[in-house]
Structure formats: structure tokens, C-alpha cells
């Protein structure tokens, strides 16, 4: 095929792909335009997941009649004028790509009027060509309607998710804006139904409350380190709300980072935030945080990615440590410190090491490696997998985590959590198979407030939840009543556990794998924790239950439930052989 220059329309469609990836990115570009026009109220309406129609209406400064058509030209922008301006960008947009890119892949109608002008302008564009530009009456501000999005780009259309999923992305996007601009009132309607509204009162905690519910919002801790004006390390300001140590989430989807009010994604900064929680949160638990960073515009390059989700800091390590310090100090100030009363200092001297205790382990050649040879050993001395477990005799517990037992050919260490997980997993799978989960009603239904992503995970399986033992009822926008739950949860906090499970199993389709993930998640959350001391009877009972399972040697995640130290290994270590 000979090399040719692409037709302008095709080139524009290709370029549009970088900026306009899906309906949510159209909404993002249009809302950012509204914000750059100093709007105090922005309302967004979408139909059919944004593919049928997107309308963004703001009350900002509008576009004068003579410039309205120009707005659809590529690289036309009112936000910067020279290359120097790129060094200190204070607006959200500046590339001059948004409107033309959107217009290249849809039919756009722009209706705008600056407050000081009497008549507004209507510009209609299809396939990148202006087809109509007439004066028309309009409220002050700008309204952009986008229809037939991606109809001319079937390839893009193919990669979009269901309208509900795209709508959920738009909602997440609007919520990010509400957090970034608490002083702007946002309103979102999906298919004619109000889906989200923020008050625009200027208070970040109120904005959080509209997304995560008042209970969560009230509990958040405030972080505030004002940056001094000027440049360098001290000029970085950190403001925001973070979850207290006793509140956590099972995924990182609750970190909202904003740099100069721009929503950004940064693994480095997310890591800085989690570092600040070091020692406060359990493994695989994550904080909920809304963080506003104020960085001098010269210190950062936002022109890295067309959608501007990634930014580059000139002094990344300083931003990193400013964030970490600010969050850490907010946490430490609020973390419970054990109170030592006066005159209460422990009076016992540290125990004097005895002769045996002082012997160092230097003489021991190398760390003895425990052979994980349970299955092989088991294969020799026992014919079915359950037999090793059934012949174990409990000796004790180590670190409130491992059960020490004597069994065929040596000593066995059993991970109590993993073992219990296996027992519960098979029980839950059995209940699912028989369609007979054991369900316990709750005295007081637990109110669960779900963010959109989890709501979608919930909706993906609708009525099925009751089949798995969760009795749910809609309680209001984004909130649900949990009336009953599988009986094995008894000791956990019902609401929190349910949310963790939703996060873990996600939206997976079909029943096979999803059901397995659900069973494994349920088992994990109700299994006995590491750190719980067990009585001799409890340990014996656990081993008996383990021996009755189909795969007693691994937990549902594939980790071993037990390791074996063979008698011959012990003999070698003690020099008996």
C-alpha cells in the first residue's frame, strides 16, 4: 500500500482517541472547560451511558459570538498564549484539543452567551465540520450537547463497556470533581434520574459526605499543612481528609489525590500515603483519603499525558515526604497512646539472662530448612489426604498462629488461619452446591453505604445475593440494609465484612469462578485470625475438621496449611545420625 497523508477527518479521529477514550473522558473535558470558565454550578446529564447524549451546562463566563466557531479548531485555546505560559499553568485545560477532538467523533451543539452580551450563539458541528452557526437566545454560560458519540468510530465503540458501567465511570468522575472543587455545585443526572448532587458549599467534609455518607465523613481526620509562598520544599501545601486508623478499606480505590485541584494518579504518592499508615493498618487494608496538594505551578509538568491524569513533579521526593509527614502527624496526633499514670512505671527489672539464654546461635551451621514435604510424606504413610491431619496429636500453639502437632513421621506445624479457611471454604462451597446456605438474621439490620463501584458489583449479581445467604434491601440512594448473613460470620462486623467481600469479588461474571471467589472471600473473613490463642480442645477440633476436608493441605488461596519437620530431619539436626 503506498504511503499517503491521511485525510484531515481521519487524522482528527485518530488524534481524538488520545483525549476522548470513553464517555467519561468527554464529560471530564467539558467539565474542566466549565471550571476554567469560573463556573460555580455545573450540571451534567447523560443518556444511554453517554453514548446517546451527554450535556454539560455551566454558568461560567461563556464564549463571545466571534470566537465560538474558533473553539472547534484544533489547538485553539483561550487559556495560554505562549510557550512560557506552559511553565506555569493554572488552568485545567490548555492544549486546545478537547472540543475539536470531541467534535471529530460525535455531533456537538454548543450554546453559549457571555453574561455581558445580549444574545448568545449556537454552533452545531458534525464529523468535525461546522454545519450551522447562528445567534440564539441563551442563559449566561455555556451548554455543550454531545450526541452520537463514537458512531463514526466503530472500533472505539467495540471496546466500551455496558451503558451502566460507562455511567458509573461518569459518576465516579463527577465525584472526583466534587472533591476537587467543593465550592462548585455539581449535579449529575443519568437517564433522567438524579444520580449525584453536591452542595457546592466549599467544605471538603460535606463533599465527602455526599459520596461516602455522613457517618464516614464525620470520622475522617483533617490533614492541613499550609505551604509557604515561593518555591522549594516548604512551598508544598497538603490539605485533606484521611481515614482514622480504625477505618480501612480493602482496595486502593478510595485514594483521591488532587494536585492544584487536578485529579491525578500517582503510584508514588499513593505509596507515600500508605507509608504514613505504616503500623496503623493491617496488611492488605488501605486508607480512605482525599488529599489536595498545592504545588507552585512551575514545580510541576502537567503536559505529560493528553488526559493529564499523570503529572511530573520537578522535586518528587519533596512532594513525597511533605505528603507523608502531613498525614503521619495527623494520624499520630489522633492515635490512641497507652496512658501511663504517674508512679506506675513497671517496677520489674528486665530478667537477667540465664546461662542457657546467653548461648548464641552462632555455632549452628545454617538455618535449617523445613521441608514442605507433607504430601510426599503423607503419600508414603497414609493413603488419603485426610489421614495425616486426622492422626495429628496437638502439642501446643506457637505465636498464637501455628498449631504444633505430632503426627506420622515427625512434627507438623499447622497455620490456624489457613487451616480454618480451608474448612470453612469447603463448608461454604457445599452449602452453595446444595443451594442451602445457613443464614442468621441480624437483630438490627446493618446499614451499608456503597460507593458506585461497589454498587455495580452488587447490581451485577442482583437477586443472587440472597441465594448466597445475604439478605439485602435497598434503603436509599447508595445505601442498603443487610438483614441477614451467612451464619459463619457471627463474630465479624456485618457491614464492614460485606463491603470487603464486595470489593474482593468485584463484578466477575458467570457463576463458576465468581462463586468460588465469593466462597473463598467468605471463608477468609470468618476464619480464625492469626494472633488468637486457642485452647487445646479448639485446636484438636480444628484439626479434626481439617482432616475431613477434600484438600486438607492447602488453603483456598493455595498456601500450605501445614508444614512437616520429619523425624529424620530432627535426628540430623541433633546429631543423632
Amino acid at each position: 500500500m503506498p504511503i499517503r497523508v491521511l485525510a484531515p477527518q481521519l487524522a482528527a479521529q485518530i488524534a481524538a482517541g488520545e483525549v476522548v477514550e470513553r464517555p467519561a473522558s468527554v464529560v471530564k473535558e467539558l467539565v474542566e472547560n466549565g471550571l476554567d470558565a469560573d463556573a460555580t454550578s455545573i450540571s451534567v446529564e447523560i443518556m444511554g451511558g453517554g453514548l446517546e447524549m451527554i450535556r454539560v451546562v455551566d454558568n461560567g463566563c461563556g464564549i463571545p459570538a466571534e470566537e465560538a466557531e474558533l473553539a472547534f479548531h484544533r489547538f485553539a485555546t483561550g487559556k495560554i498564549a505562549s510557550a512560557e505560559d506552559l511553565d506555569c499553568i493554572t488552568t485545567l485545560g490548555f492544549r486546545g484539543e478537547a472540543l475539536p477532538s470531541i467534535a471529530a467523533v460525535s455531533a456537538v451543539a454548543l450554546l453559549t452567551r457571555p453574561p455581558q452580551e445580549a444574545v448568545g450563539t449556537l454552533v452545531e458541528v458534525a464529523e468535525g465540520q461546522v454545519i450551522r452557526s447562528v445567534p440564539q437566545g441563551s442563559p449566561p454560560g455555556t451548554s455543550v450537547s454531545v450526541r452520537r458519540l463514537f458512531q463514526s468510530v466503530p472500533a472505539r465503540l467495540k471496546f466500551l463497556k455496558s451503558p451502566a458501567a460507562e455511567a458509573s465511570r461518569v459518576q465516579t468522575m463527577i465525584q472526583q470533581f466534587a472533591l476537587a472543587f467543593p465550592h462548585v455545585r455539581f449535579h449529575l443526572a443519568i437517564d433522567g434520574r438524579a444520580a449525584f448532587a453536591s452542595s457546592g458549599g466549599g467544605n471538603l467534609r460535606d463533599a465527602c459526605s455526599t459520596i461516602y455518607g455522613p457517618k464516614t465523613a464525620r470520622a475522617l481526620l483533617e490533614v492541613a499543612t499550609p505551604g509557604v509562598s515561593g518555591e522549594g520544599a516548604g512551598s508544598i501545601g497538603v490539605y485533606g481528609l484521611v481515614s482514622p486508623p480504625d477505618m480501612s478499606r480493602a482496595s486502593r480505590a478510595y485514594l483521591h489525590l488532587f494536585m492544584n485541584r487536578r485529579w491525578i494518579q500517582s503510584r508514588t504518592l499513593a505509596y507515600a500515603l500508605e507509608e504514613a499508615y505504616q503500623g496503623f493498618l493491617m496488611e492488605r487494608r488501605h486508607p480512605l483519603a482525599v488529599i489536595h496538594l498545592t504545588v507552585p505551578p512551575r514545580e510541576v509538568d502537567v503536559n505529560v499525558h493528553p488526559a493529564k491524569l499523570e503529572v511530573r513533579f520537578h522535586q518528587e521526593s519533596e512532594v513525597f515526604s511533605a505528603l507523608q509527614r502531613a498525614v503521619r502527624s495527623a494520624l499520630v496526633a489522633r492515635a490512641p497512646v497507652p496512658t501511663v499514670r504517674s508512679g506506675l512505671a513497671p517496677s520489674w527489672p528486665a530478667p537477667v539472662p540465664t546461662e542457657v539464654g546467653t548461648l548464641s546461635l552462632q555455632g549452628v551451621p545454617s538455618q535449617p530448612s523445613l521441608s514442605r514435604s507433607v504430601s510426599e510424606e503423607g503419600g508414603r504413610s497414609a493413603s488419603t489426604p485426610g489421614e495425616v491431619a486426622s492422626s495429628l496429636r496437638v502439642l501446643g500453639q506457637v505465636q498464637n498462629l501455628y498449631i504444633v502437632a505430632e503426627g506420622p513421621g515427625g512434627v507438623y506445624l499447622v497455620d490456624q488461619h489457613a487451616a480454618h479457611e480451608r474448612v470453612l471454604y469447603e463448608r461454604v462451597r457445599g452449602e452453595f452446591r446444595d443451594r442451602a446456605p445457613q443464614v442468621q438474621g441480624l437483630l438490627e439490620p446493618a446499614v451499608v453505604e456503597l460507593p458506585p463501584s461497589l454498587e455495580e458489583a452488587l447490581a451485577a449479581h442482583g437477586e443472587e445475593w440472597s441465594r448466597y445467604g445475604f439478605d439485602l434491601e435497598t434503603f436509599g440512594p447508595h445505601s442498603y440494609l443487610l438483614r441477614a448473613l451467612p451464619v459463619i460470620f457471627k463474630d465479624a462486623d456485618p457491614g464492614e465484612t460485606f463491603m470487603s467481600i464486595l470489593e474482593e469479588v468485584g463484578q466477575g461474571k458467570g457463576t463458576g469462578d465468581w462463586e468460588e471467589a465469593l466462597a473463598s472471600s467468605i471463608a477468609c473473613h470468618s476464619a480464625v485470625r492469626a494472633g488468637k490463642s486457642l485452647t487445646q480442645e479448639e485446636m484438636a477440633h480444628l484439626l479434626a475438621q481439617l482432616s475431613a476436608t477434600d484438600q486438607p493441605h492447602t488453603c483456598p488461596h493455595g498456601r500450605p496449611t501445614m508444614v512437616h519437620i520429619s523425624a529424620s530431619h530432627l535426628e540430623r539436626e541433633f546429631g543423632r545420625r
Partner: protein
Amino acid sequence: MRLSCLQENLSRGLALVGRAVATRTTLPITQHVLMETDQSRLKLSATNLELAITTWVGAKVEQEGAVTIPARLLTDFVNSLPNERVDVELTPRPIGVHLQCARFEAHINGADAEEFPPIPTVQEGITARIDPQVLRTAISRVVFAAATEETRPVLTGVKVEISGQRFTLAGADGFRLAVYRGPLVEPVTEEIHAIVPARTLSELQRLLVDQEEPVELVVTPSKSQILIHLKGVEMVSQLIQGTFPNYAQLIPQSFGTRAVVDLQEFSRAARSASIFARDGGGIIRLQVIPGVEGMAGKMVITSRAEETGDNEGKIDARVEGDEAKIAFSSRYLTEVLSVMERGEVALETTTPSSPGVIKPVGGEDYVHVVMPMFVQW
């Protein structure tokens, strides 16, 4: 400090305060017992920082003083002594006590009394007086329903409400609720609302066995501690802070079916059903069948375990309303039946998925609400 007392009294006193000695702790001093002279008595105190118990032992005090001694060691040694006079003397260096009884003597190292955590004293507050046996019954009916896991700290406590001429105890763990109301010895002028740790009440229940005089409960104005006065014993406990669920609205106000049965028979049937329930996920199914044409109604209690077998018990019941079915966790059912004493009990239900109510017929003002298990029938 130099004093003498009877081995029997000292041993009893140590056993009493021993209930408050910390078992696992990072603060070793809380495993000690504080001995101090108090006029012509020996005062013994122990605390695990949540609960403190103080008692007095009659003694002949020759010289005043105070010291703390490891509780376990002292108690074990005193228990091994013959029932005779014990002479106790403080030794300054190393700090400790010298004990002598008949022909046995011992020296036990201790620590300075100054290092012992201060036992909170409650000087003023709202006071209520309750008959000890009434209180003991009330605690036994309620305390087992409190939560044992710390996921919701307020539920590990029992809500104590005192107002007018009555007191109310309420315990709940998210799946069941027990509420007992009883009379006060004399009316109170000011109301008391407090959440007392269930463990404190369990210890109190033990101490109440041989009490005859009214028990005095005093809550500090700051609502952070409760002081319980018994004859010769004082308990001070931290209160749990937080909001207890509004339990009154969790008690169903009406029912579709009410079955009155003999407690002993119900209890026996539930116990035998629980044997089979053990392997079948702990479910006991109850079926209430109204009598026809003057015949007595029935309650059928069943349980089954897939591979083991099943059982069925039938008891007579006076039934109001329609036939009803409901399933309970066998532990919840047997526990509530075992704390009730005798006579008849009523089971009130509406649907298989709404709460069941168990209460005595006549006599006590006691209500127990249990959430059912949702099962296939």
C-alpha cells in the same frame, strides 16, 4: 507494717480480690495484690485497670504500712497454710513480706506500694440500692447475651438503666437481646444510664451469692466509672463509652402465634435436639401446631445432620394464633432456656424470618429476643 490475722480470713480475702488480678498483662504490677493497713483491718486490693476489687480482713494491727506482693504466689502459699494465726511483717530490703503461721514461714519479694495503680475512689455520684438476690437473677438472665468479640465494644457491656422505682439490664450481641426489669429497694431521684462491662457483672454475680444486705451502685458524675458496694467488698469498674442500641424498639410489640410450654420440657427437648444440631450447622427447628377440637396444641422440636441422623421431640403447648415455624441457632436457644428457672415460658413468633420472643409466663419481667436462622423447611 506488722499485723496478724486468721489464715481462713486472709485466704478468703485473697480469693475474692484474686478475680481482679490481671492474667495477661504488659504491666507486671497489676499481677500483684496491694496489702495495706486500714485502722484495725487489713485492706486487700487488686486491679487489672478495667476492674478493681477491694476487701477487708479483720486483723490485729501493730504497725501501719503498705506493700504489693505477687498475687498468685501469696495466695498459693496462704492456701497451703493450716487454719491458724498468720503474722505478716513488712521487710524493707528487699521490699516484701515475711509471713509466719504455726511452724511455717516464708519471705516473698514484692514492690513498693507507691507503684501500685491508684484504685479509683468514687466520692460522689448517683446511688441506687438493689436487693442482692434480685440483682443476681437479673445478671444471670442478661449477661450471657452480651457479645464476646470486640468488633462492637458497646455490645461487650450490659446497659444498666435505673429510673424511678425500677432498674433495667439489657444485653445484646447483634443476634439476640435480653432485657430484665426489677425493683429498687428505694426510688431514685435521678436516672442512671451506664454500660457496664459484662465481665464486671459476671464477677459481681459470683460475689452476690452469699450477700443479704442491699447492694449499692454508685455512678460517678462523669459517667466513667461505677462503684459497687457489697458487705465487706467494693468493686470499681470502668464503664464502656458509646451508644448502646435502642433496644426497646427491637422488641416486637405483637405476635402471630404464641405457644406456652413447660420450661423443663422445652429445655430437655432443645438439649437433645442440639446433639444432632452440632453436626448440622447448629440449627434447631421449631414448629408450633394449634390444637383442634379441644385437644392440646403441640410444639415439635427437630434437628438433623446430613450424615449423622435426625431427631424429633414433641411437647404440649397452649397455642394462640396460627401454625408457625421458626428455626434458631441451637446455642442461642439452649442458652436462654438454661438461665430461666422454672414454670412456663411463652414463645411468640410472627414469620420464620422475624424475631422470636421467649419470656416467662407470669412473675418476672424478662424478655429475650432471638433472630431466627433462615432455613428451607
